[in-house]
């Protein structure tokens, strides 16, 4: 596709992201706000796809738009559907937020441009990952370290699952721990009534 077309789509997507975010913040109707967070995730996923990051876009679509939206709805089924009215504009939080935002934007001036081949992230380990030859085991025959080829086609998978297998193991343990924690907190004593179902889902009959 033409570069200008891609730029136009990116600007459109980012504009929609900003608009959705502002609407979510200003909205008091929580059910609609939850739906909008799902839309926000889908827009984010589309944008990441344009940045050539299909794996991240995939995760954002599945987790951000799918599971989180559902979890928010489940939470909503247990509470009220409308947020409590907020007091009017309070100056101190506004100043704090503006200052923090300005600092963050100021920080981005130091960052390398998008896709800059000289960026530190592209010079340190990335060439070895892309060549699929990370030297890591040193022994008598390979004092420099033995090159390990993963050879599975999707470099992201080879980095995540093999070269950084420890990280991914840690992440899996985090998910495991989080799941156990949620179960311990939420389950309490089991309900007696076997005929109940998930029809308390808020779209239909929640007050």
């Amino acid at each position: 596709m033409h570069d200008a077309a891609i730029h136009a789509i990116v600007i459109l997507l980012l504009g929609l992201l900003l608009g959705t975010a502002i609407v979510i913040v200003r909205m008091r109707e929580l059910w609609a706000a939850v739906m909008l967070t799902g839309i926000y995730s889908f827009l984010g996923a589309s944008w990441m796809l344009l940045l050539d990051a299909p794996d991240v876009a995939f995760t954002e679509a599945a987790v951000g738009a799918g599971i989180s939206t559902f979890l928010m709805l489940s939470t909503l089924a247990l509470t009220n559907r409308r947020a409590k009215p907020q007091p009017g504009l309070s100056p101190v939080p506004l100043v704090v937020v503006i200052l923090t935002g300005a600092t963050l934007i100021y920080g981005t001036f130091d960052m390398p441009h998008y896709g800059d081949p000289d960026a530190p992230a592209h010079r340190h380990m990335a060439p070895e990952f892309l060549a699929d030859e990370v030297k890591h085991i040193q022994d008598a025959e390979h004092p420099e370290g033995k090159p390990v080829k993963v050879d599975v086609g999707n470099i992201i998978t080879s980095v995540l699952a093999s070269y950084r297998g420890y990280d991914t193991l840690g992440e899996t343990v985090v998910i495991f721990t989080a799941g156990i924690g949620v179960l311990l907190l939420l389950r309490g004593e089991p309900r007696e009534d076997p005929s109940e179902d998930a029809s308390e889902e808020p779209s239909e009959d929640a007050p």
Partner: protein
Amino acid sequence: MKQQTILRIVAKLLIPYILLFALYVQFHGDFGPGGGFQAGVIFAAGLILYGLIFGLSAAREVAPPALMETLTALGVLIYAGTGVLAMFNGGHFLDYSYLGGHGGGHAEHHGILPQGQHLGILLVEFGVGLTVAAVMISIFFAFAGRERVQ
């Protein structure tokens, strides 16, 4: 939502494809986008949709909560076990090159099963997918089984 004919029929049509797509993402993650995490979430989404449409008790029959809790731990065990297996074969923890017994693994490819790095990645991704799917389904059960607090 059992009375909603349209929702029921559409869900019946969609759920098999959602589950199939999850399996594709799981076992094709080494060549295409995706992997265990995404696959687990998609698989869980299929079962959660089933639970939303056909009721919590029906979903509990398909995926018994006790089994889900076991699978949560089993996934982590498969991942760590793959690492320990590599240690038994003479390598470091999680050094998949030592799986399959061929020092280098990937180069000499006999037999149907992939070897070395490829086998290791399939195994650990399967562990990740199992844990993620089981955790998501368990959380769904935990939320959906709650009384309304007022």
